[in-house]
């Protein structure tokens, strides 16, 4: 039986030849992402913005009357600027409304809003089924925002410190930068396309922080091995060699994850779409960054073979030197 080989044996692609243009493009993308996050803002869902989200199914109807709902719901006195969109099946909608200032800490007000919106939907569509209601007060959503930012920063630093301990500081810094790149671009995508940004997306990004490093670690492990093996090789060539040697792994590990996630993206429940889409996106960004961010940054940070010379022999050398002098 002939086995499938997605990456031919002994590739010799000069990945690092284009490192500067790629790096510049990546830096620009990071800058553009943050610019988008700060100018356009993230489209916070109720988790982070506070407010109320009602999801409903128009049972027995082919399509949810979104246009009609925009009119009837907006006409309600308690509601300002509702966001009404299809969610999942064609006959399902999600209605997102802000909680007005007077509703803060007043549960009756939120309950009354739900009641009025439900009544507006039932009017003319008695078969409406309420699938779920989320109500988040401004206090809680503010805490979620802080905790989320904290969790992201803590996760990036913690794994970078681990890489630093296991490898060398240059590798830790490289991993941290690659992660920063992945997280920035994911956030940027959510800002540019104004996709709903919820707690699940933070979960997805934290998962990306874990998984995007897998490829980086495989490449780094090989770089370390080759640094010990080829003491005299030019660093750029050595990095290229390492990336090429591990290319099949990088492609296969990303691909297995991708084929597992794709059906969930297509056939999975609508409420998971954001989470899975973010992870899938992060998977591609992460694979790219382990080749084009994490590896070349080692050149600039000045990794040398000496980084991995066993400590004792370095000490021995010094001792010998010292004896020679005296």
């Amino acid at each position: 039986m002939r086995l499938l080989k997605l990456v031919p044996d002994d590739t010799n692609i000069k990945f690092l030849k284009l490192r500067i243009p790629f790096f510049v493009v990546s830096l620009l993308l990071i800058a553009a992402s943050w610019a988008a996050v700060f100018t356009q803002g993230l489209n916070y869902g109720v988790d982070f913005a506070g407010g109320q989200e009602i999801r409903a199914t128009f049972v027995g109807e082919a399509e949810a009357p979104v246009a009609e709902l925009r009119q009837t719901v907006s006409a309600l006195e308690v509601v300002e600027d509702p966001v009404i969109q299809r969610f999942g099946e064609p006959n399902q909608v999600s209605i997102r409304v802000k909680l007005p200032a007077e509703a803060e800490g007043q549960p009756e007000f939120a309950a009354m809003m739900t009641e009025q919106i439900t009544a507006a939907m039932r009017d003319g569509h008695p078969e409406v089924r309420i699938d779920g209601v989320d109500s988040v007060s401004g206090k809680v959503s503010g805490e979620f925002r802080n905790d989320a930012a904290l969790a992201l920063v803590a996760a990036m630093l913690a794994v970078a410190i681990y890489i630093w301990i296991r490898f060398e500081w240059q590798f830790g810094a490289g991993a941290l930068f690659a992660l920063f790149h992945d997280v920035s671009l994911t956030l940027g995508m959510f800002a540019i396309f104004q996709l709903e940004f919820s707690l699940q997306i933070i979960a997805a990004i934290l998962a990306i922080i874990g998984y995007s490093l897998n490829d980086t670690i495989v490449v780094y492990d090989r770089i370390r091995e080759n640094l010990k093996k080829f003491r005299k090789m030019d660093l750029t060539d050595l990095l290229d060699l390492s990336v090429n040697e591990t290319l099949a792994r990088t492609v296969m590990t990303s691909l297995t994850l991708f084929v597992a996630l794709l059906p969930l993206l297509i056939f999975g429940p609508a409420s998971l779409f954001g989470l899975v889409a973010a992870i899938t996106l992060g998977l591609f960004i992460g694979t790219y960054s382990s080749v084009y961010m994490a590896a070349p940054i080692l050149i600039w940070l000045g990794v040398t073979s000496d980084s991995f010379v066993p400590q004792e022999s370095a000490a021995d050398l010094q001792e010998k030197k010292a004896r020679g002098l005296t």
Partner: protein
Amino acid sequence: MLDFPTWKKIWLWGLTLIAAAAALPTLLASTNIDIPDFLPQPTVNLGLDLAGGSHILLEADPAQVAAQRLENMEETVRTTLRGSVPENRIRIGDVSTANGELSFMVDNPADVDRARELLLPVMNGTGLVREWDLRVEDGQQMILAPTGDGLDTAVDQAMETAIEVIRRRIDSLGTREPTIIRQGDTRIVVQVPGLDDPDQLKALLGQTAQLEFKMVDQSALPSDVQQGIAPLGSEIFPYAESSQFAGTSVAVRRLGGIRGDSLINAQQSFDPQTNEPVVSITFDQQGGQRFAQLSTQNVGRLFAIILDGNVLSTPVFNEPILGGKAQISGGFTTETANNLAISLRSGALPVDLSVIEERTVGPDLGADSIRKGMLAMLIGSAAVIALMIASYGRFGVYATIALVFNVMILLGIMAGLNTTLTLPGIAGFVLTIGAAVDANVLINERIREERKRGRRVVAAVENGYKEASRAIYDANITNFIAGVLLFMFGTGPVRGFAVVLVIGLFTSVFTAVVLTRMWVAGWLRNARPNDLSL
């Protein structure tokens, strides 16, 4: 590395099969196959987002506990200093509860020391912590300030009581298996699975049910009262919205009333004369005596029935009420009267709780999500398996068997630990399936490489496992770090995602590295191949 003595094999297979068997009750739950009763039957709980139900986060205001405590202290101080005989009475005035402290002037400076003696015992609670600090300013002003520890203890007790009260109230709804847990210092999470209508639940939780009977200050000028000006020693309460006097207020005497927290029963009933829904209450013995005393001393006067700061009605004590029974009216419907009866029966909440987060999921949606998630998981697994077998042949088959065991063991451990599967948890399963074979990819690629460098079969396999494991462990540890932070950050569904990911890391290292190595070793020993098709 490839040496597996029999004891080790038995041990590994035993562990694998026991953990995988633990998944069976969960997997067979939707089929007709029964597992004999004498076997343990761990199952994975479904989260609210899959089973349907309500998640409500309640928050208490500690300032309210502090204010309540201050008011109680004022009563205590007055009673204590009054003494049992009139000639021992220490007269005080200028009582103030501003700035969270209780301060008062002792009329005769010579009494200050005696007052201090009397007050010392009431300043310390039952515990070891000092609950109040006492200081004297300008010779005759005494100030009682709550200590931080004392306040913390009070808030703590209030929260514990609140949880008990909530549990009794929810139990009275007849819902099954509510989860009520304290979160942080001032919050309570209430999760009730499979509840169709969370409104009644919320109505019950929102009601403090602090019932008070206070005398109406009939000397107050009605015009002053409506402007919110209370006579000395009185305070203004608004009428409840359900009352016929809604929109107006009434002045009541601040002290000397009684609290309705000493009830032994409360029932919804109907007033025999008006047929209006009312709540009939029965005091316990002590409460009955106090109520009898209050009604005896105040025959012919108006008293106010106050619920959570709103006046329900202001009836007259026509005669002393000695039987310890009373009837509360106040424009109730049958439902609101019934809710109040439940709340009063289960006791008053020691502190107001406000709903700061609420999530409700209908039961249909969850079943749909599980179906869709399972379908996606099966297709995804099939794709991963096809890719692995096509790429690595026999080694891909080992990886596949490991993958099946991985999913079973993961589910089994989750069932054994009684964890909760949430909707994001399903995504966690899919992610684990896609990532678990990564270890096999690394190992198999390394074996391929070692063969190309000319190593013999056994040495190549041995080196493949050895050299690949560094990166495998590093990758899993970084994932573990991210997973733990995800667990710490997440609540509810997101936490379910973290649980699956973190347990999945352990199970996948076990199946993808340890088990496949055992199988490959067994094959190498039996078949003694000269070449690997890899």
